[in-house]
């Protein structure tokens, strides 16, 4: 039996409800909040600033360092022990790689651009929400970029290609593939591609095409958040 109606009633090409806001952490050089369904991410950018330890510095361009962290009380189930683990380290690395291709850090040699991403509540899709928040925060911090990176999960549940799997769909006992992707919306290039599950090549390509379309919608929300902050300032 194919998956014909989603557990929460959404259409297959619909994401959960999305919202975003820029400039949420006053101390930071740039910051943003991004919400998709019950998952929320807050990102704060500090930099360009000095980089420690010094061996990490690059004389040609600034170094982007992203730090993904779930708050201890954010997850479904047991408390998440603070201090990071193998999962958060890997996610921090893939987030950095997802954002870096859209940025031009050549003006910041020997410096760090630090992006701290905190998740107060999570319910599937936290790495994609983190990328969306971080991209808005980097733009808010004035880091030169060719576009604001968007991210969303695509995949397949019981034969049906869809976007933005929620917790119940990820946990579905049957054929499931969860494929988080990040996209540079203006070019359609992918900067993050991971997969958990099994899928045919044809369905994968179908899912990626769907993801690219949906990322344009997410991109609108991200850009709107930035405009809301800067248009108000222009009026003053």
């Amino acid at each position, binding site marked *: 039996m194919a998956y014909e109606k989603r557990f929460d009633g959404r259409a297959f090409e619909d994401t959960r409800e999305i919202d975003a806001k820029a400039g949420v952490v006053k101390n930071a050089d740039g910051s943003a909040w991004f919400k998709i369904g019950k998952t929320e991410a807050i990102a704060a950018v500090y930099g360009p*600033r000095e980089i420690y330890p010094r061996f990490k510095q690059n004389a040609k361009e600034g170094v982007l360092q992203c730090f993904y962290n779930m708050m*201890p009380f954010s997850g479904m189930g047991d408390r998440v022990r603070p201090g990071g683990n193998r999962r958060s380290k890997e996610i921090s690395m893939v987030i950095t790689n997802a954002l870096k291709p859209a940025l031009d850090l050549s003006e910041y040699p020997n410096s760090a651009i630090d992006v701290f991403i905190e998740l107060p509540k999570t319910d599937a899709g936290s790495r994609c929400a983190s990328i969306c928040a971080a991209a808005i925060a980097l733009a808010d911090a004035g880091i030169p970029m060719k576009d604001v990176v968007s991210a969303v999960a695509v995949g397949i549940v019981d034969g049906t290609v869809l976007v933005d799997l929620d917790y119940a769909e990820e946990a579905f006992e049957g054929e499931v593939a969860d494929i988080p992707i990040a996209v540079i919306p203006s070019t359609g290039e992918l900067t993050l591609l991971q997969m958990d599950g099994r899928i045919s090549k044809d369905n994968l390509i179908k899912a990626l095409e769907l993801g690219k379309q949906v990322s344009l919608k997410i991109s609108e929300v991200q850009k709107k958040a930035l405009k809301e902050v800067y248009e108000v300032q222009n009026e003053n």
Partner: protein
Amino acid sequence: MKTEQKEHILDILDKGSRFDGRKFDEMRPVEVTYDISPNAEGSALVKIGNTEVMAGVKMSIEQPYPDTPENGNLSVNVELLPLSNPSFEPGPPSIDAIELARVIDRGIRESGCIDVKSLCIEPGKKVWTVFVDVCSINDDGNLKDAASLAAIAAIKNARFPEVVDGEVNYKKKTDKSVPLNGVPIEVTIVKLGNHFLVDPCPEEENVAEARLTLASLEDGTLCALQKGGQQPLTTEQIDKMIELSVTKAAELRSKL
């Protein structure tokens, strides 16, 4: 720079004004929002001016400590997130984060506001452990009072999860809250020259000579104390600071 700023701050204090124009005993606007993280058993966001902290409670069933077989456990942890202040670094908790967590822990524990016996399920075998985690979002001074207020707000907001055959079902909360007798509130007073200030802004924190963090209950009973800063305090000064702290605690308690 620091001495010049200190001279300036002291100078205007002598004229009766603070760095940001507040009265000596005036707090910035305080705001408490509950239920900010539905996966937690209880949660709260506290804002004091532009200072912002989140706190969440997770509860789990664990074995009691062998010396207190009938007592549940309380664990308070503070994360001074690098997101909230450019000088906070990622990595293991700093001494400031550890001190802050321990002072909040003492305020809650020693007040006796949580009856740890009521957290016992099966003596010697199963008790509830209440984890309180506080995370700073934006540090614009006085994280201490914001963090402790958020911690107690999250505990007030907490509801026990459902237990099915001895296993916790985190997807469903019961309507049973953590029984509280009293609400300890922490207020930090800083000393600058001959002046005592509540709710210090970062500029005042940086140059404060001494500080005293005090947790007190509704009836004025003190349940935790922590002196900080480089300079000593006389008993007369401590007396004044306690009075100010207890008065302000009542103000903060009314925000919960």
